[in-house]
Every structure is written in C-alpha cells, then in structure tokens.
C-alpha cells in the first residue's frame, strides 16, 4: 500500500518533490504560480482530493485575492498534506469495483449515456467539457461503449509519484 512505500521518505525528500512539481508551473522563475495550477500540482503529487478539498487548500495558500501562490506559503501546507496522507490515492481495485457497480448488468462495458448520466449528476460532477474529453479518451469504438477494464489499463495508475 502507499503508506509502506512512503515511510522512508524524509521531510527533505518531500520538500524536493513539492518544489520540483511547483517549479514546472513557475513561468517567471520567481517561485510563484497561478492559483489555478494548484489543483494540477496537488494531484500530480499523488493526492486524490475532492473539489472541496482543493478549494480549501487554495484558500489557505493564495496571496489574498491576487490569484497567485508563493512557494514559501505552499511548501509547509503541502508538506503537511503529504505527511498526513490526507488524500490517499484510490486503489485500482476500487476504481474497477466502482465501474462494476455502475455496470449493473455486468456487461463488461458501459454505454456512453450511462456513464454521462452518473458523472454529470450530483456531488462534484464533470463539466460538459470534462465529460466530452473523458469520452474521447475512453471511447475507442463506434458503438459508443466504454470497456472499462481497458480504460483503467490505458489511463494507467501511477497515482503515487515517487
């Protein structure tokens, strides 16, 4: 499980990891990123937060209402998140199981319409654009079916960035 692999990580390692990810979006080389990139950075560090979680983090690290986040503010907050394993990755078995639950008749695939219905309804649903994109990625046949086992394989699952 994720926890075991991470127990040898020192705080210094974690700092390096966070800084590396942060700097990829630091276009002006002044240790600042646009707040809108924070979700990408958090996800890429192996976390699986909900939208609500993300809003909370952004609120904590944004410089007032400037729309920018400084590394000095982000680093301690994100370090804590990682040390606490606050948003652990969803194990691949859970993803598969999730698909299986949606596939009530156990067909091995889901129809475009079905998937769309579930993903765009309650909770923190997909936007139309996200739905469209996901379907473009997962649908590879003319019949409009998502073969979810393939999908999980395709999108890969290196949720934990070493």
């Amino acid at each position: 499980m994720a926890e075991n692999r991470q127990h040898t990580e020192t705080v210094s390692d974690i700092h390096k990891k966070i800084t590396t990810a942060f700097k990829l979006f630091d276009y002006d080389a002044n240790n600042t990123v646009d707040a809108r990139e924070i979700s990408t950075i958090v996800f890429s560090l192996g976390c699986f937060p909900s939208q609500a979680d993300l809003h909370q983090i952004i609120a904590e690290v944004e410089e007032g209402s400037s729309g920018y986040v400084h590394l000095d503010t982000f680093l301690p907050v994100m370090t804590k998140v990682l040390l606490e394993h606050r948003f652990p990755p969803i194990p691949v078995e859970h993803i598969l199981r999730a698909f299986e639950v949606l596939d009530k008749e156990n067909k091995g695939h889901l129809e475009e319409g079905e998937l769309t219905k579930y993903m765009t309804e309650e909770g923190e649903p997909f936007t139309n654009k996200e739905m469209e994109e996901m379907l473009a990625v997962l649908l590879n046949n003319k019949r409009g079916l998502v073969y979810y086992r393939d999908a999980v394989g395709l999108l890969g699952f290196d949720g934990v960035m070493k």
Partner: protein
Amino acid sequence: EFQNNKTENNFPLQRAQKLIRWYRQYVARTEMRRRYTWHIFQSIEYSGEQAQIKLYNFLGYLMDNFTPASSERNLISHIFREHEVCLDAEWERYFCYKNIEVPEVYSGPHLTFPLTVEQAVGLLEAFRNKKQLHSRYALQLLLETWKLLRMLPNINRISTCQSKEITICGDLHGQLEDLLLIFYKNGVPSLEKPYVFNGDFVDRGKDSIEILLILFSFLLVYPCDVYLNRGNHEDHLINLRYGFTKEVLTKYKIHGKRILKLLQKIFSWLPLATVIDQKVLVLHGGISDTTDLGVLARLDRHNYVSAMRPPKKRNSSSSGVSIDADLEEDIWNTSKIFQRRASVSYPKPLGPRDCFQNRSLQDFSGRIKVKMEDELESSRRRESVYQLAINRSEKDVLGVSNDSVTSYDNPKEEWRQILDLLWSDPMSQDGCIPNEVRGGGCYWGPDITEDFLNKHNMQLIIRSHECKQEGYEFCHNRKVLTLFSASNYYDVGSNRGAYVKLGPDLVPYVIQYQASSLTRELTARQRYTVGRTERSALKVLREQLFAHKSDLICAFKKFDKEATGLVSLNDWASAVESVMHLDLPWRMLCSQLVSCKSSDGTIDYNDWFNELAFKGPNHIDQSLLETLYRHRSTLETIFRIIDTDNSGFITVEDFRQTWKLLSVYLKMEITDEDISHLAVTIDSNNDGSIDIDEFMEAFRLTDKKSRLERGRSIPMQTP
C-alpha cells in the same frame, strides 16, 4: 464526506464520485507530463543552438591557432572558403538561369517577370498541391529578390495610415501548412493587407524553400506591403545543421548549390527590423542594453553573412561597389586590419566566445541555466574587460588604417549589435546578461525594455525566436510580445501558432490557430493524451543522457562510496542534474527513464546504461565512441561543410584531419594512431571515402522501449 469512506456500499453515485476524482487526477498528471515534455524539448533545442555557437568557437580557435604553414591550413580554408572571387556583376553571371531548360514534362508553374499577383497566388496553389518550382524559375525569382533587397534600408519604416491593419507573423520554420492556414484565415498580402514576417522562415520544417519562394514572390509583387525581417536561421552556417541546406540540395539536385549561394546573399541583405508608426519595433530576437538603432541603421548589413563568421573584410573601393573578397586571403595576410589573427597579439578579450572556451572543454553541451547572481557579477567583470579590448583594438584599427578612412565603426561592435538583435531572449529579472543558453545575444530584463522604449519614444516590441505554447506571450508589463507562428513545432499537438493584427490604435490583436492535417490523423484519444509527444521527448533525452555516460558514472560513483553499483532515487536525480544542467524534474522523469529499479527504489546505474546502449561500429574504443556520439551534430555539420560538392562523402584524409583538430580543441588524449584506426574502420569498404549519412546512422540509439523517431525529425521527412 465520500472520500475516506471505505465501506462496501453500492451506491452508484458514490462510486461515480470516485471515478470522477480518478479521472481528474489523470488529467492533472497529463498536464504535468505535458509541461515537462515541453521543458525537455526546449532545453535540448537551446542546448543545440548553444552547440552551434560553440562550433563557431571551434572554428575560430582553428583560425587563431594554426599558422599558414601548417598542413591543416587546407582543411580550415576549405571550411571558410568562398568559392569565387568576384564582383556583384560576376555573381549575377554565376547565378544566371537563362541556360536552364525546362523540360516538357514539368508540370509546375511557369513564371514570367515582372511577377503578377495571379502568379504569386498560383505559386501558393502549386505548393499546396505539392508541386515543386523548377530551378530555372526559382533562380530567376531569387535573383529579382536579391536585386530588390539590396535597395532596402536596414530598418523598414511603415505606417498604418489609411486605416490599414498590418499583419505580423512570427517563426515559420519551413512549416508550409501554417503559412497556408494564415493566408486562408487572414487573406494573402495585398495593397490593403500589408504583412510583416519576422524571420526564421527556414530550417526544421520540410518546406522551407517553398515558404521562401512564396514570401519572396509576394514581396516582388507588393514591395511596399510585404516586409521581411532577418531571423537567426537566415544564416547559411546554421542551415547546415538544421536542415535547410539538406532540403534544398535534395529538392534541387543539380542547381541546389547555386540556389544556396544566392540565398546566402539574400539572407545577408534581409532587413534587420521594422518600425511601425515610429512606435512599434518588430524584430526577430530582441535587444540588449547596448542596442542602438542609429548604429543599426547605418551599418552595411550585407557584410554580416553569418552569426558564426567574423565580420567580413570591408574594402569599400572608390566606386562604391562592395567586393566579396576571398576570406582566405583575409585570414593569412597580416597587413589587413580586420583579420582575426590580429586578435592573437592582444590579450584575448573575455567576451562570450572565450568564456565558452574556458568551460569544460570535454563537453560542448555545457551548462545551460546559470545562477543569476553569479552570472551578473561575472558578466559585469567580463563586460568591462571586453569593452577594454574592443577599445584597444578599435584604437589599433584606426591607428593602422590607411585605406578605410571612411569607417569609424567597429565591425566587431556592429556584429555584436546584429547578434543581439537576432539571438536575444527576454528574462523576468532586471539587467542584461549574455545568453549562454543559446550561445549568442543576451537575456534582457524589463528595465532594459523600459529604457529602450523611452529612449526611442516607442511603446511596444514585437519579437519571435521562442516557441510558446499558445503561440504568443506578453512580458515586461505587456511591453514585449513574443509571437510564434509554427504550430505543432516540437511535435504534433505541442503548441499553437499565432499572428497579430495591428491597426492605427497600435493595440495588438492576436489570432491563434493550429495546423490540423497532422492532428486529424491522430485519433481523438491521441489528441487528448500526451503520450506520443512525451515519448519523443524522452527518446531525445535518453540520447543526451547516453552521450554523457562517463561523466554520469563519475557522478554516480561519488554518491556510491561503497561501490555497490547502486544509488538512491534522490542521489540519481542530483547526479544527473549536476552533469546535464538541463534543470528538468528528474525525480518525476525517473520512472520514465529508468526501468531497472529494484523493489526498494534503488537504481543499478550500470544496468541502466546497458538499457540505453546502442550498437556502434565494432572494434572502436567505448570512450572514443561516446565522445564521437556526443559531438555527432557538430561533426556532421563540419562534414557537410567539407563536402563541397555535396556528394555525401568525404575523404578519409579530411575525416582524419577534422577529428584530429577537434580532439586537440577538446584536449582529448587521442593518438594519431587511434584516429587513423578509427578512420579506417569507418571506411569499411576501403575506398578512401566515408559516407556521411552512414557514419551518422551508426549513432542512432536503438531504444529498447520505443522505435519512434525523434520528435524533431517527424516534420523533416526528406524524400
């Protein structure tokens, strides 16, 4: 609270929430990969350009250090030689097209001069339909272009009067698709639709010559409404490395060399910049803290043929006709003023050229990112000594000079002004430092922009030179706009292109696009994922890593004091960065670059190199092979310079001499015997000549993971 709930409930909505989160994570990861893929391409692109300038340093070194009596003289003069000694009139005879017959079977366009707009549009259509313009017409068109360009000033001045909107395009790099797309969206150039093309028309893409022919034909039809600025790739020595030379010689097998020679002159006659309404400056690279539009307006731009060659001898005879003297004569004749041997007798100025030489000479692909503070400090020191040396040489120049009474301008200084214009990049910090990433020009800061614009009473600089993901980018408080018009530049889907419209209000209006015929071939899935581009970038990166095998192993050993052959991930990343200096997120890339990781996360670095290995020619010492591999681009460029008749072969003797010179410069321990042995081995059929392509092919890494071509070579499919 769904996220931490692991109970086995079967509520589909909750499950869907998990899927949603999983997918969003995937998108974020993809975005991250897109970013570092971009970084990889860019770092390597710039380090390639840096290597190019270092090639110049090598050639300069040759000229400074080999006396006329030495046997290497032939090879060196070979490298620098102008083919003929003649006046412009004699050049026109050399370029004469009249004897070239156009065969009946030719199905391309026939041009008559003076050119009409119908013919220009016809040419566009022909190229769209993959036709090629016959060499007779190509030469004729180029000759007319040359004649026209000679009459233009160094700096074009245009205005948006009569409510004309001016369209400005950035780098095109031989990507005909993008030019066609721009003309489709925006209309072709006309009296109502003036255009400025901001350099880098050629190299990398596969239709460079077609782009030139189109731009030149519209220039001839509408000389007051089409403006061309020179880019750093409008340079025949750069073209040797980046594909344009090869493209022309392949498409025009018989007359290619003449076409290239004529283009060499045309490039040197391209204007350096364009000013719109006296308020907006359009140029290819950028500015420096010493950029002086007055100096730039006055100099003889055609004397500066290449970024990599020192200023030509300026011998303005009384008739005012410029003379293309044989550079060879220049070099060895000590009584001439501007020849480079003179620099040997002065203390070498610590300008950019020397600072590269003083770096690790084992490694052409030296440091890329430098610590800003250190850099500013040492550059200040360098600049002052450099300035001192320039002043001294200027003094001596004026002292010795008897003939060039009219010139008070220092050609070295003028050359630097042009280099700055064509090669510089903006940075976010204040100040001005040498551009070590590219190897030419400088990095300039917002304060420099501010001062420059105030001094010249201008409000905006529009430049190109750097690829941007969105095709454009503002910086320096929106006073500098970077414009890049070659979409999908690094690989399919890597970036958009953009052009700008400027009306009398001088507010830039940006239009973006992306050439789609390539993307149409991709499936929807491929378009949204980053896999393909990423694989190309990683392949290129692996080659770079392999080329530094010895240095990397040294670095690993420092971390592996107990000689276990293993290093941790952290140490691996630190070691790699310390050698490669590419400032890439190595820890993130590790899983993509190293497959032989053990379960506890340590890396066996010897195994790793085996993974990267390639099959080079047999019986050659491994370390020699590695050095050859590392400098293969430089070697290839030199070979192509030597191969003056473009046969694709060079003699074993030339190969030997080149390699010997290179090894001296690199301070390598290589015996004559080693080199001879190498040459003999390469000349496998023993006929005294070496096939350049075959030699280069030997160094293609056979990647076990993927057999995709390098990202950059995809657009360059030579027939």
